[in-house]
């Protein structure tokens, strides 16, 4: 049997029962469209998470104080609560580790902050000028902290937009805030800048913050030179693991710890965070896709149901075709072609519909979506496979019909 004859027969059989074919295709359309939409939402979420982690800074390592257990000691203070990192550690990293582009030690604490008539409790972060580069902090109005402020222990502050709202109200014009005085822990600071909004990552609002010079913070709020963490920006993604290893070695030496397992600090590598976040997003995508997959499965069963009905209805036709010389294979191919054509048409419409749906989701729902070529190809592959899998059994039933019985079927 020639291919164009097969095609012609397939379409004439399918068109002979338009309503039934249409409804069966609809099942596949819904299945494929929901798979495409769900996967695009999942991948969009994964993209959002990754870019939000990358907004923290690029090629970033964060050195955080850890806990230290003495020999035989079972009790530890919580991770990060120890004060094991000092300003000198930061300076040593900058001077001795190769591949460090920028370094920004940070002292962070929560303090009461008051403006005229209002007050709030917020995170006060003492840091250096490099912090804006390392952690991607952009200043919208005014300037960020400079090295001169740090050296001079100037009482200046850069506010996050949320803090500005909390202290001066939502209506305030940011230029008006510049130069105003606020009191942090009852010490008067002058506002020199407002950062651009960064949005929150998780429960942590990155805009609810006040940056002050590190020297000022250590002098007025900490009273010692212990820092909360040190952000290190590597020169490139490639050498980040090497930089991490070098910092570990340096700090172990400085803290006189021989066993790496009992280190009193830990280093978070941004790549690791991205990786674990994407694995979460991946799981989410799989979850969404499998829910959508169920509807695709139901669509497939619809195909099988229709094809079984068709085979029963056309028993006499099958008998005749066999009588005039159709082999088993000819019959199998004919019915399989009908099933695959249905799923293929369903696949095409489904991809188009799924695409529109995910565009609509990102347009109206505000959730980013991302359609990958892979998911489109996968949807096509799956729909063709469903045609073959669910079409095979009815086609096999048709092919094994006995011609005599089939011809006499009423």
């Amino acid at each position, binding site marked *: *049997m*020639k291919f*164009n*004859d097969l095609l012609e*027969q397939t379409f*004439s059989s399918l068109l*002979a029962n338009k309503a039934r074919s249409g409804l069966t295709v609809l099942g596949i359309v819904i299945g494929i469209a929901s798979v495409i939409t769900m996967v695009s939402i999942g991948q969009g979420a994964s993209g959002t998470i990754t870019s939000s982690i990358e907004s923290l800074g690029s090629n970033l390592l964060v050195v955080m104080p850890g806990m230290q257990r003495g020999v035989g000691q079972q009790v530890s203070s919580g991770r990060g609560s120890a004060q094991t990192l000092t300003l000198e550690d930061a300076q040593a990293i900058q001077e001795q580790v190769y591949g460090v582009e920028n370094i920004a030690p940070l002292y962070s604490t929560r303090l009461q902050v008051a403006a005229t008539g209002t007050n709030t409790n917020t995170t006060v972060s003492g840091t250096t000028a490099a912090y804006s580069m390392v952690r991607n902090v952009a200043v919208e109005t005014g300037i960020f902290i400079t090295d001169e402020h740090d050296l001079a222990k100037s009482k200046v502050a850069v506010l996050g937009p949320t803090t500005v709202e909390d202290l001066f109200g939502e209506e305030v014009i940011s230029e008006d805030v510049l130069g105003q005085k606020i009191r942090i822990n009852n010490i008067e600071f002058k506002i020199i800048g407002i950062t651009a909004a960064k949005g929150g990552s998780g429960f942590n609002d990155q805009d609810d913050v006040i940056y002050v010079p590190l020297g000022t913070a250590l002098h007025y709020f900490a009273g010692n030179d212990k820092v909360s963490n040190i952000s290190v920006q590597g020169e490139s993604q490639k050498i980040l693991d090497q930089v991490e290893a070098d910092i570990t070695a340096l700090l172990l030496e400085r803290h006189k710890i021989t066993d790496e397992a009992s280190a009193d600090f830990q280093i978070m590598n941004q790549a690791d965070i991205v990786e674990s976040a994407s694995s979460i997003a991946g799981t989410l995508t799989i979850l969404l896709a499998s829910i959508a997959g169920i509807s695709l499965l139901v669509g497939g069963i619809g195909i099988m149901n229709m094809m079984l009905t068709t085979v029963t209805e056309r028993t*006499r*036709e099958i*008998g*005749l*075709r*066999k*009588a*005039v*010389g*159709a*082999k*088993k*294979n*000819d019959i199998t191919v004919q019915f399989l072609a009908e099933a695959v054509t249905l799923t293929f048409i369903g696949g095409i419409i489904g991809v188009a519909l799924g695409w529109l749906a995910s565009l609509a989701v990102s347009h109206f729902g505000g959730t980013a979506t991302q359609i990958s070529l892979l998911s489109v190809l996968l949807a096509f592959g799956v729909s063709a496979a469903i045609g073959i899998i669910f079409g095979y059994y009815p086609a096999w039933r048709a092919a094994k019909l006995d*011609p*005599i019985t089939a*011809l006499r079927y009423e």
Partner: protein
Amino acid sequence: MVIILTFEFWLIFMIECKDIVKIYKTGDIETKVLKNISFSVETGEFLAIIGPSGSGKSTLMHILGMLDTPTSGDYFLDGKNVAKYSDDELAEIRKAKIGFVFQSFNLLPRTTVLNNVCLPLVYAGVDKEEREKRGKKVLSLAGLEERYYGYHTNQLSGGQMQRAAIARALINDPAIIFADEPTGNLDTKTGQIVMETFQELNKNHGHTIILITHEQDVAEYARRIITVRDGQIVSDEHNGHRAVEILKRKSKV
């Protein structure tokens, strides 16, 4: 003398059945539908197999038409024993050598007359242009007017449908045409026309025709009549003048 020489050339029969037995099993009960049937058919014969319902004539036709295989016995078609052929091998022979005309026509609905007639050639892999050329030829041979070729089969009368079915049986230029109660669904007048068409195809075009019927007057159109009863051949008679001639020729061989 000339006749005898011609005949020696045809020593191999077109169809030769030897001790054909067909047993159907329903659960534990075995029904012997055909009991040691033996006969042979020559090229160009017009043979009627007649018998009451339940006599086994349809089963015999199915085996002869290679829609079924015998439980035991040998069936030689053109000298080849096809009794043990597989389904696909039988399909291959049906495609090349056999045409069927059924009582209930078995035309595809929602399909044009021409496409119905051309269907066997689709499986033979003949391209569309050639198919339609041959389709039109056999349709005119079967006596259907050209204006009906584009009709859907459900728009035709019974006689027209059977003519289309005959055309379909002719399209692969078969060695044998099997007609299973071809007049069963037709009125007497149309039935006569159909039978005359068969006679014409046999006489003027040399097609071998095997007709299955339970009506004596339909069988009368054939030149040889085999009567089957209870799975056995009870008589094998030659009908009319020409049939007697064949008998004479045969006895000389």
